[in-house]
């Protein structure tokens, strides 16, 4: 029941309700540094909610959640939990990059400004330095030519790649992806998955909610199947995908594959 340094993410009995509806019913999960965990499951099963709990965009109701050995959103002192101040929560989040289904790029800023905003404004990196690094990151996601475009001048796939670069600019230890390709037209999915594959290969710890089974199979170190707020089955992606144990997993996979 403690968050020792070994795991990058460690969840113990995490529960979360919205009003009377319990959306997470006790999630246990451990993600080792450098590991890529893919999360699948039917709509409404709580995948996004769990991801949002990891960087404290949602408060958990019960259980414990550690990232990189630190309790998320709380400090334990004298056997009691104390809520962290906004400032401290913000500091925790800096180590966790998040990529949303709907990109959520800042529409009034160019791609480069999107990437530079947080390092300069939050971390206090010098602007020129941040810009140089930003251009580098945008090149890395294949957008070297588009640094001065506004989001609405970019395709969905390009926007999502900017969003990844924006998260990487904070040099996070952990990246969370919430269905990063599901708002994209099919022909644009590949370019985003390629970037994510590269990221995984570079050793980034990643938790990826996705419906791209191909990606999960090839890139994921493990696959978690969630349903109705619980982890139903987890393990090696190839094993889970080809030989699911639990009947709910079987039912789900038979529909999506």
């Amino acid at each position, binding site marked *: 029941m403690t968050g020792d340094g070994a795991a990058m993410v460690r969840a113990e009995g995490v*529960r979360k309700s919205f009003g009377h509806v319990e959306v997470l*019913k006790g999630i*246990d999960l451990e993600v080792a540094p450098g590991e890529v965990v893919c999360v699948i499951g039917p709509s409404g099963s709580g995948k996004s909610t769990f991801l949002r709990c990891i960087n404290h965009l949602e408060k958990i109701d019960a*259980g414990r959640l550690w990232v990189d050995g630190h309790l998320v959103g709380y400090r334990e002192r004298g056997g009691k939990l104390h809520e962290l101040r906004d400032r401290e929560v913000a500091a925790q989040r800096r180590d966790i990059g998040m990529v949303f289904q709907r990109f959520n790029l800042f529409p009034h800023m160019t791609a480069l400004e999107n990437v530079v905003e947080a390092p300069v404004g939050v971390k206090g990196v010098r602007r020129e330095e941040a810009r140089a690094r930003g251009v580098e990151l945008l090149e890395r996601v294949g957008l070297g030519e588009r640094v001065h475009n506004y989001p609405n001048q970019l395709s969905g796939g390009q926007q999502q790649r900017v969003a990844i670069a924006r998260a990487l600019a904070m040099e996070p230890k952990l990246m969370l992806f919430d269905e990063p390709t599901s*708002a994209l037209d099919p022909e644009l999915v590949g370019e985003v998955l390629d970037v994510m594959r590269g990221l995984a290969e570079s050793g980034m710890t990643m938790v990826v909610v996705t419906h791209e089974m191909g990606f999960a199979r090839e890139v994921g170190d493990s696959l978690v199947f969630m349903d109705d707020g*619980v982890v139903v089955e987890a393990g090696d992606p190839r094993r889970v995908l080809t030989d699911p144990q639990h009947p709910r997993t079987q039912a789900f996979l038979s529909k999506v594959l």
Partner: protein
Amino acid sequence: MAAEAPDTTARPAPPEQIRAVPVRHPGRWVAAAVIAVLAAMFVHMLATNPVFQWDFMLDNMFTPAVLRGARTTLVMTVAAMVLGVLLGIVLAVMRLSPNPVVSGAAWTYIWFFRAIPRIVLLFFIANLGALYARYEFGFPFDRQLMDLLGFQADWRLFGFDGNEIFVGFTAGLLGLALSEGAYMAEIVRAGIQSVDPGQAEAAHALGMSRGRTMRRIVLPQAMRVIIPPTGNETIAMLKDTSLLIAVPVTTELNFQLRAIGSRTFQIIPMAVASILWYLALTSLLMIGQYFLEKRFSRGFGATETRAQRAARRAADVGSQK
């Protein structure tokens, strides 16, 4: 990486409910305290400052004359809004007419009455009596026109009764209604234009005439868009009746309260009485408006539902897969 099967009952100890010590926000409480103290000071001042003369105010803010003034204000609000809405519908339909003269005339009207301050308009209209009285006596010109045209009756009435029409209540009502017509025209037009053109098309395809299509199909649907801002306009109209002091309309609330102030030299208590009266009347309308908006924001239209559904579907494209 680890994750057992979901039967949490098998686990040694269920992780406890989180009962964390909440963060203290001293800044917030200071702000709240400052506001509370300011409010207390304000109330104390209101209670103790002799300028306010609360007894005097209470004695005088419900006299029969003032109550009559409040009634006049409400009557004026309703009458001006009814005329304004009717005028607005006519102007909006004119504005959307394919005939450029008709639509241009509506445009000019709307532009003119939206561009000038109501108090200036009211002041002008109050003085219009002079115009027509004078006009009648000095010029044979209107008689020529009357021979020429078929709608003299109206014009004569206008001309002859200038000094009776442009006085007091009638002048005020005329000014407010003419002005409101311009604002309502824009609201009605927006409402008409908000109706899916497919509706008119479907009606035409069924063989319905333009007029019938407007009356039966377009206007009823436009209402959903028209009614909430009309509520706002009614509230604004109630407040703008206070401008009638410029006409002057002597039977109106604001005038009556100020007249008491003038007579008794208790200007401030009666100014406060004005504020309280309007606060009460407007708040009543605001509550009505709140329920109106709630009712109409639900929407009854398949149009809206379809648009919403489309948006939802588009948003779901990804997550549903």
